[in-house]
Every structure is written in structure tokens, then in C-alpha cells.
């Protein structure tokens, strides 16, 4: 049977580890002088310390020198690699700066390019009048505006490589060659086309192309009345060139006539309206007939036939009806 342990045995270790204050330490030391168990404990702990210190490995000078050499070599290599890292970091910084500069230049170029594209896209500006019915379509190399009703002002600034710009109206289409013009459609019919700048070509199937330049106001010919026109019975006019089949009043023509050029979009102000239809009809009929002849001369028989049909439809009591009927029938 084991003897009971001293209740103050723990103080021996506590004293060694500095866990006791000065008074407790002194009391513990006094107790250890009287307590054999505590004295044994103290001896064991001191023996342990001595044993651990004695068990320490002997100083290996070779190992120390070897370790020193290796340590300093590794430290030098580390410092060298850090210096290289620093150099690498400087290069990386330089590369980053260069990359940033390139990115800025590329962004600027892209911005300019996109602005140019935006300007390019805005080459066609269509301004509709109140109540205008229209739509716009882009397809390939064609920018098309369909005007069904109302007035539409169109401003086009195009260069040769830009898409074609065409305004479709009930009778045909108006191709813009880079200009400012206004077209008005009422009840399915083009009632006015005025050109402010540049040139447009008004194409109507079977009626040839109309080239309208700046300062020109085009209005359609009134339907021929049943009564004979003043021109009826007059000999046909033969012109070397196709005269305009529609009543065109260009600024140049007005200048030749000693009149002021007409402001774009304004109707003829000083010609009596009641005298205009007959004269216009005769001129238009002449124009239509001469166009048929021109087509025949060029060998465009089918188009000539269509033009003839259109002539007959438009001028059912026309001066050259019989001849045109023959053309329309293909007898010629």
C-alpha cells in the first residue's frame, strides 16, 4: 500500500516554474527541508534538468560550419532572386504602362471610328410632316424609305461608297444622289416633289426617269379632260432629246425666261392656274410619245410597249393615239 502523498508536493514544481510568489516560495522551500517526499520530488526535477542538459548533443563544429555556409549561400541566392523579382516587377510595370498606352490609343481610334460610323449612319435624315405615314428599311447597299402618305423632308449626304438612298412613293421611286428634297403624297398619289439641293431621279414605271435638280418643284399633271386641249391637232413636236414630260420649272428655265428662280417647295405663283393644264397636257403628251420613240430607237421594245400602254391610259384621246396603239399592240 502506497503512503499518502504530501498535499504540498505540487509546490515543488510550481516553485521551479515561477508560479509562486516570494512568500509562497519561501514557505515551500522551508517545507521541503522537512518533507522527504517534497525533497525527493525536488531532487527528481533537478535530476531531470541535469539529465536533459547532459544529454544535449556535443557541439559539432563541422555541422555548424556546413550549416553556416549553406545558410549564407541560400540567403545570397534569395537576395539575388528578390533583386531579379524587383527587376521583373519594373519590367512588368513598364509593360503595363506600355499596354495601357496602347489600350488608350486603340480605344481612341475605336471611338473615332464609331463616331465616324455614327455620322455615316446619320447620312440620311428623314423629317416627316404631321401625320406622315412612312417607314424606313436598310438592306445591304440600299437605304429605302417608303412614303405612303404625307410630307417627308429628306436630307442625304452620301459619298459614292455609301448605300443608295431611295424613297418609294405610290408611282415609283425617287433616288437621291446626295441632296435635300421634300416629297408629299396624298391619297396614294405623289402631289409634290421639291428639290432644295443636289439632284434626285424620280423613276416611275413606264414613264421614264425624271432628273430633278436643285430649285425644281415637280407636281403631277392633271387628268386630261374630255374636251380637246389647245394643243390637240397640232403637229407633233420632234425633239432631238427627250424633253421633260412633266411640268418642270427649274430655276435655270425661269432665269432664261427672265423670271426669278423659284424658291424650293413653292408653286408657280404668277402663271394663271386655269391656263396651265392644257399646256401641261400637250407638253406631257409630247414627252411621253417621244420617250416611246426613244425606247424603240434603243431597241427596248418591251419597255416601249409598256410606255405606250401608259400613254394610252394617261392620254386616251391623245394626239398620237393611233400610232401608239399600234406600238402597244406590238404591230410595229
Amino acid at each position, binding site marked *: 500500500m502506497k503512503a499518502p502523498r504530501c498535499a504540498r508536493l505540487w509546490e515543488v514544481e510550481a516553485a521551479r516554474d515561477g508560479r509562486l510568489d516570494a512568500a509562497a516560495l519561501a514557505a515551500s522551500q522551508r517545507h521541503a527541508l522537512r518533507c522527504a517526499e517534497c525533497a525527493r520530488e525536488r531532487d527528481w526535477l533537478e535530476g531531470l534538468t541535469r539529465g*536533459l*542538459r547532459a544529454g544535449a*548533443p556535443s557541439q559539432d563544429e563541422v555541422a555548424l560550419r556546413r*550549416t553556416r555556409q549553406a*545558410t549564407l549561400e541560400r540567403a545570397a541566392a534569395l537576395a539575388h532572386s528578390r533583386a531579379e523579382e524587383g527587376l521583373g516587377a519594373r519590367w512588368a510595370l513598364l509593360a503595363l504602362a506600355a499596354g495601357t498606352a496602347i489600350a488608350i490609343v486603340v480605344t481612341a481610334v475605336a471611338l473615332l471610328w464609331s463616331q465616324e460610323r455614327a455620322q455615316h449612319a446619320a447620312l440620311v435624315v428623314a423629317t416627316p410632316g404631321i401625320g406622315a405615314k412612312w417607314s424606313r428599311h436598310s438592306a445591304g447597299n440600299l437605304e429605302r424609305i417608303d412614303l405612303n402618305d404625307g410630307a417627308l423632308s429628306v436630307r442625304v449626304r452620301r459619298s459614292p461608297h455609301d448605300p443608295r438612298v431611295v424613297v418609294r412613293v405610290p408611282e415609283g421611286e425617287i433616288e437621291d444622289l446626295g441632296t435635300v428634297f421634300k416629297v408629299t403624297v396624298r391619297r396614294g398619289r405623289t402631289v409634290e416633289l421639291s428639290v432644295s439641293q443636289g439632284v434626285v431621279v424620280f423613276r416611275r414605271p413606264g414613264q421614264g426617269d425624271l432628273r430633278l435638280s436643285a430649285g425644281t418643284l415637280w407636281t403631277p399633271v392633271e387628268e386630261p379632260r374630255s374636251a380637246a386641249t389647245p394643243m390637240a391637232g397640232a403637229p407633233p413636236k420632234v425633239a432631238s432629246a427627250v424633253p421633260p414630260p412633266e411640268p418642270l420649272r427649274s430655276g435655270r428655265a425661269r432665269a432664261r425666261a427672265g423670271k426669278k428662280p423659284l424658291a424650293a417647295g413653292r408653286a408657280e405663283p404668277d402663271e394663271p392656274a386655269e391656263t396651265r393644264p392644257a399646256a401641261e397636257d400637250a407638253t406631257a403628251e409630247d414627252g411621253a410619245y417621244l420617250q416611246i420613240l426613244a425606247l424603240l430607237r434603243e431597241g427596248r421594245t418591251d419597255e416601249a410597249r409598256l410606255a405606250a400602254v401608259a400613254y394610252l391610259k394617261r392620254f386616251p384621246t391623245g394626239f398620237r393615239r393611233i400610232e401608239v396603239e399600234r406600238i402597244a399592240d406590238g404591230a410595229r
Partner: protein
Amino acid sequence: VNATKRSGARTSSETDAVILARVAGGDLAALGVLYDRYAPGLLRFAVRVAGAEEAEDVVQAAFLRVIRLAPAFDPHVASARPWLFAITARIVQERRRSLRRWRAALLGLAQQQQRPQARQLTDARADLTRGLARLSVAKRTVLILAEVEGFTCEELSAMLSIPVGTVWTRLHHARNELRRRFEEES
């Protein structure tokens, strides 16, 4: 970094703080001075805690870490010894996994030594070595630093960044385990 700086004779009188300031400035000769001052104790400690095979590498790693930590050394502290032991102890802790292998190898050797003929040659030092090998790294570190290197429990608390109560507990358990070991052996 000037790896070729020569410290000269003044190094012998320079404080640890001054030497560490030079190390922080890239003076590797100063690192050599610091090594000469403290490496023997650190190597001895490393051999006891981590084994002879690992010890040299642990000390090298400790001095390489000194280069990185030197700028943070408190210049008002007189001696860098506790700081260097703390770094070494931390590295040993970080290498616990490889130290387990060392411990297993040592214990295997101890088993062989228990054969009758060899047992007669076994002395208390060998028992102590085996006992130490059975301790955990944390307990062994505290025990060696306290009993062999003479650091107080308060110093160990600061060096190892653990509460002083933990230091006391680890010391107590380490001693008790060794005591049991001796009792079993005898």
C-alpha cells in the same frame, strides 16, 4: 542587396539590434555575425527537438526567415536570443509532420535497444532520449527551452505566443510523461 559587405571588427561589439538592422538593409555579412553568435545554441536545440537530420535544415530556415523578419525586430530589445529561438521553435512546429517520421524512427531504434544484450548498455541518457521522442513536439519544445536553454515560463509565453498557463501545463505534462517512462523502464 550587397552580399559582399564586410562587417569588420566592429561587429563583435555591436548589439543584436544593430546587426539585425544591417541584415534588414541587405548586409549578409551581418547575418553571418548573428549566425556565429546564436547558431550553436539553435542547432543544439533543433537536434533535441527535431532530430539531427532535420536540425541543420531547421537552423538554415530560421536564419533565412530572419532576413525577412529583421525589419520587424524591436531595436529596444537587448538580445535577439529569445526571438531567434522562437523563430526556430515555430519552424519546428511547422515541420511537425516530418518530425513524426523522425520520432517513429527513433522509437524503432529504442525497441531494438531493448534486447537483453543491448539493454545492459542502455543508460539513463538513452531512456531520456526515448522519453523525449515520445513527447509531442509542443511539449518537447517547451521542455527543452525551459530546462535546457533556461528560458522562463513568461519568456516562453511571449516567444511561442501562448498563455503562460499553457506553458506551465505543457511543462507539467512533459515531466509527468517522462517520469512514467522512467518508472516503466525501471
